[in-house]
């Protein structure tokens, strides 16, 4: 194959791969983002935008501490680079309109040539609904506990009264 033809084929292959990556990255309903070891955001996907309201122009090139607690996220990045991965770590992300969204983070270290880390991939689950349900469940449980106490209390009172009546009947007899 002539060199020009080879180059043309390679460029076509790269474009196919690029489109495949782009589509996969855009398709996933899970928010994804990538930061370099300095904590600068280098990439986000549409699911990230959907949940947080930030688009590429808002966050790419910005420090990750713009929407996470600085100390906490720095710790997560360092731990991921040390252990290679982190699963299910609860945290809070601040959306563009200032809402604090509870999330569960998954992070993976990205290495170049199996040596130096050149950043961390992040993904997360939005725990807003889970936390809301958790709160509702807790409130329900508290209500039930109150009810239980009330019912048990009433029952004990009944037993006490029955005892009193029994004693009174005995005395009269």
């Amino acid at each position: 194959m002539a060199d020009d033809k080879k180059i043309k084929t390679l460029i076509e292959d790269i474009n196919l791969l690029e489109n495949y990556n782009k589509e996969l990255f855009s398709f996933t309903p899970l928010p994804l983002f990538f930061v370099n070891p300095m904590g600068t955001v280098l990439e986000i996907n549409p699911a990230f935008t959907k949940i947080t309201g930030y688009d590429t122009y808002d966050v790419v090139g910005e420090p990750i501490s713009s929407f996470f607690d600085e100390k906490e996220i720095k710790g997560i990045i360092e731990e991921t680079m040390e252990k290679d991965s982190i699963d299910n770590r609860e945290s809070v992300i601040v959306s563009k309109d200032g809402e604090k969204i509870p999330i569960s983070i998954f992070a993976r270290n990205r290495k170049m040539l199996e040596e130096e880390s050149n950043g961390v991939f992040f993904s997360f689950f939005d725990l807003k609904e889970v936390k809301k349900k958790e709160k509702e469940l807790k409130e329900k449980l508290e209500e039930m506990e109150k009810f239980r106490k009330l019912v048990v209390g009433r029952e004990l009172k009944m037993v006490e009264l029955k005892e009193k009546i029994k004693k009174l009947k005995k005395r009269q007899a």
Partner: protein
Amino acid sequence: MDTKKEAERMMSFKGEVRGMTLKTDERFVLKRFGKEGVEKVEKRMEDLGYTLKYKDVSSMDYYPLGMRMLSLVAIKEALGLSDERIREMGRAAPRASLLIRFFMKYFLSPQKTFERANEIWEKHYTVGSVDVAEVAEDRVVLQISGMESHPVFCNYLIGYLSSLGRIIVQKEVELEETKCVFKGDNLHEFVCKWQMTRK
């Protein structure tokens, strides 16, 4: 730009440019002006005698350098953008560009990144070069030479380099073009300065 002659002159510029730069132009226009904006720009290109369909551009392929200049000029003219809006377009570009992803491994320290400025340039352009004339703790001086361009490209570069500088040093930067081939100099020189204390 009044005549097709000027477009022809640009199309005769030596060298090629990666499609990703044209894709970045398209992304900015789409975001700010929608599909209608892209159509207006493509129509202006056609009026000037050249066909460019942004959606058909492949990021990795090479296109004539003149096409890149023509794209910027057509955007400026078709959408009536001021020089400041062109700088805004340049500022937005690094955040949407594939460049960021390709060169993320170099974004480990400002020094390392600036040292590789010409490598980044060469990934985009087959002509011209970037020389780091000076790099200090609070400033860097970049010189671009060896390529033909258009004045609109200077404004675009002012925005682009200031945004890239901000990303690299993670601080607000001031960027000024101190030498320009359209003002009689033999190269373009950009001075990028930032405060030592984090804002």
